[in-house]
């Protein structure tokens, strides 16, 4: 057997670059180039699980039914900061149908958001303190409400300002900022360059805490059987969840099986075991019965992650011609009680050519639920500050905003001085502007100067404005990822890989890649995902990674299976494997190799039938990433808004998005991802904001009525598309990630359009009617943002 080689490679996940030791596959197929003829890849194959979903047959976690299953409900902290002095379960145990309670002493050592589960020190309102389980969900909820929690409350700090104030109450024993704060990243000499800049603009921005608000809340069903634990979980990472559970309960990985079939959205919040998972498992252990623990909506909104709120102070210096001299940004980022360090600063270093950039980030702990990855974490927040300041600079210089961005085009990775595998942002600018009709703006005259632009551009109640933004996002994916492709005796093909489909279309896209590589009809191929016990490892479905990470492994597995299929067919067709080709689930002798030969071909089914129980089995793994190469997705977005200056309401009228993500495996599903990202971006721009009562530290809008996400009535005309091609340097299928980029540019494009419409910049999201009215109210004042 050939020896495996291992090398170190770099993989970027959610804006974080990691070095990993990975194995080098025995062979890697030649890249599919932009000119490689394709039968299945690039086609709008209908989503393969759509029929199950439109008929109500798709089983989501809360739909799993196990014999004797009990239902859990979580008891949550009623205050933001303090100590539990007593929990009285007496009333709960009297509720008919209650079977067990789970208290702090039952969960010793189980860590959750960097703290002990059911910690009796309360650090945010909604923190899990205990749980109950009962025979029905209603009884469990009643019992949880009957639990009496006595607390001693302390002063809390729920905002960045409150947590950083002198003498602020401590969220963590070691202080309210993370240990490496302030985190400074600098290239060049930003201060020196700023001193010699012709023009300097300064702004301060605020972005809100946004909530994922997936339609399906977090949830798990846990069942123990003979020392084996099976968990059905709504998760983006079955293997992460498995290792979390093995650690928490002292189990071997072979004792834990995590299954995820369908899930109702994740958006970054479902990347491992959650409190609900641990609670279901612990209660199942305690009662000996299967237990379901699904969060109610309020639990979901207060305790399942969020996008960090930020304050960003941005200074950009430039020459008169609009060449960037220096960028300086200082940011405070609200973590809540825990999470990781999603960086708003990174995009300031990446987006434009600029030799002098310095960012300073202070990550602040607050008495609120922990942050979690949320679709392009960091970049969404940072892009708002950077892209709005770019527009402010454009106005200052009287340069068209698109032209300003083009003048500062980064032709290589500025941060690490390395080439991009491919970058076609220039085409995104050109095609996006063309489809949007951006030129007609300059037809009005030159981009209005700062002075001219103050004040509404037109008379009347409804003001129209236009704005744009640029996008970049590390989306090259990487190893490790494994896949197995097997051909059944009837010629059908199973793609087996331990990935997840969150609603993204991964099942369909991976089947298309396999079908293309092995030469099968797409109807004959299915993808099996989401089971740690029976499928080979892939990482979480996060960071827009799945297609670029798992896709090459699937292709390689299919190529490996094809090679074996050809070996078998060469015997049956009495021809060498070199002259064989496979298309539409048929192996034939290539015409070019044997012109005018009598038709000799065998369908996959015929080959399978002759092979009987001999199985065609192919294995594939994801190879290392190219050395010293940045792999990013790019995009340019253009928004037209209408502002009602009497009510302050902003309506997005039209939105054009041009994106570069390398090869697109399925254009319709990819378009759905763009539209979805844009709609979430519209929500972030206009409506979405977790509101806390400053005095009590309690969430004021943990419902879907009060936390507004876009409805169909908010839908603008959206034109979202990709520049076509294939990134053959990034990986051999030529695809990069595409799910996160579309949310990045939406809020700044919309905010820039609003500024264009009303002639005044609004520097705090969301652009609610009252913020718009407040901005309009200061129109008469001297220049400067509000």
């Amino acid at each position, binding site marked *: 057997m050939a020896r495996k080689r291992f090398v170190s490679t770099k993989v970027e996940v959610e804006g974080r670059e990691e070095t990993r030791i990975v194995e080098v596959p025995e062979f890697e197929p030649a890249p599919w180039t932009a000119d490689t003829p394709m039968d299945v890849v690039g086609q709008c194959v*209908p*989503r393969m*699980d*759509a*029929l*199950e*979903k*439109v*008929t*109500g*047959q*798709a*089983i*989501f976690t*809360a*739909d799993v*039914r196990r014999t004797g299953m009990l239902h859990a409900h979580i008891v949550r902290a009623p205050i933001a900061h303090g100590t539990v002095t007593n929990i009285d379960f007496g009333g709960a145990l009297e509720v008919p149908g209650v079977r067990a309670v789970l208290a702090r002493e039952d969960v010793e050592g189980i860590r959750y958001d960097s703290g002990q589960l059911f910690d009796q020190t309360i650090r945010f309102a909604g923190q899990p303190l205990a749980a109950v389980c009962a025979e*029905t*969900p*209603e009884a469990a909820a009643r019992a949880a409400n009957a639990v009496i929690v006595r607390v001693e409350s302390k002063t809390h700090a729920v905002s960045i300002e409150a947590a950083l104030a002198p003498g602020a109450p401590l969220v963590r024993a070691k202080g309210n900022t993370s240990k490496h704060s302030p985190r400074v990243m600098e290239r060049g000499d930003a201060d020196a360059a700023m001193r010699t800049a012709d023009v300097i603009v300064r702004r301060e921005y605020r972005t809100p805490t946004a909530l*994922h*608000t*997936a*339609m*399906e*809340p977090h949830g798990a069903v846990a069942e123990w059987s003979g020392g084996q634990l099976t968990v059905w979980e709504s998760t983006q990472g079955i293997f992460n969840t498995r290792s979390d559970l093995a650690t928490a309960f002292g189990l071997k990985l072979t004792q834990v099986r995590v299954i995820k079939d*369908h*899930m*109702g*959205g994740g*958006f970054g919040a479902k990347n491992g075991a959650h409190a609900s998972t641990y609670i279901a498992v612990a209660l199942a252990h305690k009662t000996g019965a299967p237990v379901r623990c699904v969060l*109610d*909506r309020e639990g979901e909104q207060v305790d399942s992650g969020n996008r960090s709120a930020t304050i960003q102070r941005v200074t950009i210096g430039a020459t008169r011609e609009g060449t960037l001299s220096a960028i300086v940004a200082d940011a405070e980022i609200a973590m809540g009680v825990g999470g990781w360090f999603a960086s708003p600063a990174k995009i300031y270093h990446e987006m434009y050519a600029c030799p002098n950039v310095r960012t300073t980030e202070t990550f602040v702990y607050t008495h609120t639920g922990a942050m979690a990855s949320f679709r392009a974490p960091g970049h969404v927040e940072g892009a708002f500050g950077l892209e709005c300041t770019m527009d402010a600079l454009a106005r200052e210089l009287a340069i068209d905003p698109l032209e300003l961005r083009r003048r500062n085009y980064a032709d290589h990775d500025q941060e690490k001085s390395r080439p991009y595998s491919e970058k076609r942002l220039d085409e995104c600018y050109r095609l996006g502007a063309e489809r949007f009709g951006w030129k007609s703006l300059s037809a009005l005259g030159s981009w209005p100067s700062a002075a001219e632009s103050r004040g509404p551009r037109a008379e009347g109640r409804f003001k129209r404005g236009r704005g744009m933004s640029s996008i970049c996002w590390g989306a090259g994916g990487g190893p490790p990822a494994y896949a197995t492709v097997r051909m059944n005796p009837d010629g059908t093909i199973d793609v087996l890989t331990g990935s997840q489909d*969150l*609603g*993204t*279309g991964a099942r369909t896209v991976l089947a298309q890649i396999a079908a293309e590589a092995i030469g099968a009809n797409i109807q004959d191929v299915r993808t099996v995902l989401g089971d740690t016990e029976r499928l080979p490892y892939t990482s979480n479905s996060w960071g827009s990674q799945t297609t670029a990470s798992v896709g090459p492994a699937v292709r390689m597995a299919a190529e490996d299976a094809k090679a074996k299929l050809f070996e078998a067919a060469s015997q049956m067709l009495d021809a060498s494997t070199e002259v064989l080709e496979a298309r539409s689930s048929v192996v034939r002798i290539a015409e070019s190799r044997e012109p005018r030969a009598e038709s000799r071909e065998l369908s996959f089914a015929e080959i399978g039938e002759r092979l009987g129980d001999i199985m065609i089995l192919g294995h594939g793994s994801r190879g290392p990433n190219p050395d010293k190469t940045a792999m990013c997705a790019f995009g340019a977005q253009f928004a037209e808004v209408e502002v009602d200056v009497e009510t302050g309401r902003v309506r997005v009228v039209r939105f054009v998005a041009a994106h570069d993500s390398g090869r697109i495996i399925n254009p*319709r*599903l990819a*378009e*759905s991802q763009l*539209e*979805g*990202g*844009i*709609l*979430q971006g519209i929500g972030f721009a206009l409506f979405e904001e977790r509101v806390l009562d400053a005095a009590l530290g309690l969430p004021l809008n943990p*419902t*879907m*009525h009060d936390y507004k*996400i*876009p*409805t*169909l*009535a908010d*839908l603008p005309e*959206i034109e979202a598309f990709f520049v076509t091609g294939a990134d053959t340097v990034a990986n051999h299928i030529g695809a990069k990630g595409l799910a996160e980029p579309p949310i990045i540019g939406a809020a700044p494009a919309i905010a820039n359009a609003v500024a264009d419409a009303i002639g005044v910049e609004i520097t705090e999201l969301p652009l609610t009617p009252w913020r718009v009215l407040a901005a309009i109210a200061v129109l008469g004042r001297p220049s400067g943002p509000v």
Partner: protein
Amino acid sequence: MHLTVNGTPHEFEVAGHETLLSVLRERLSLTGTKLSCGRGECGACTVLLASPGSARRTVYSCLTLAAACESASVTTIEGLGQDGPGGHHPLQDAFIAHDAVQCGFCTPGQLLAAAALLEETPSPSASDIRVAMSGNLCRCGTYPKIVLAIQEAARRMAHGA
């Protein structure tokens, strides 16, 4: 109480607090109807309800008490289009064709809301669709595709296809 669900009559004893959603999901295992907010804000639990003597309309089953549905007839996603060609409603085919489905969690509710719209307004305008569908949230952002799917289903139904 008596309740007809997707054409099949049932008899239950229900507690006063039991919701129609709970009866459908927990007693009948019709799990196509989803619980997301539990308070009539998101539309994931939408079903069609015809009380005796009245036309069927959409209700949020999470807010509808089962006891208030005496002798009513309920259509859930499992029963939508069960009498149609191939056992599907044209909307279901159109949702697949236009990719009006991402994670699929809101999809049953979307389809029932759309079915009610087309029963009342066979050729809905863009504005009709906005009004009728804005009570059904989708976090994945399938709205553009839902509009296309409803328009196509309306066309196909008008031509008897």
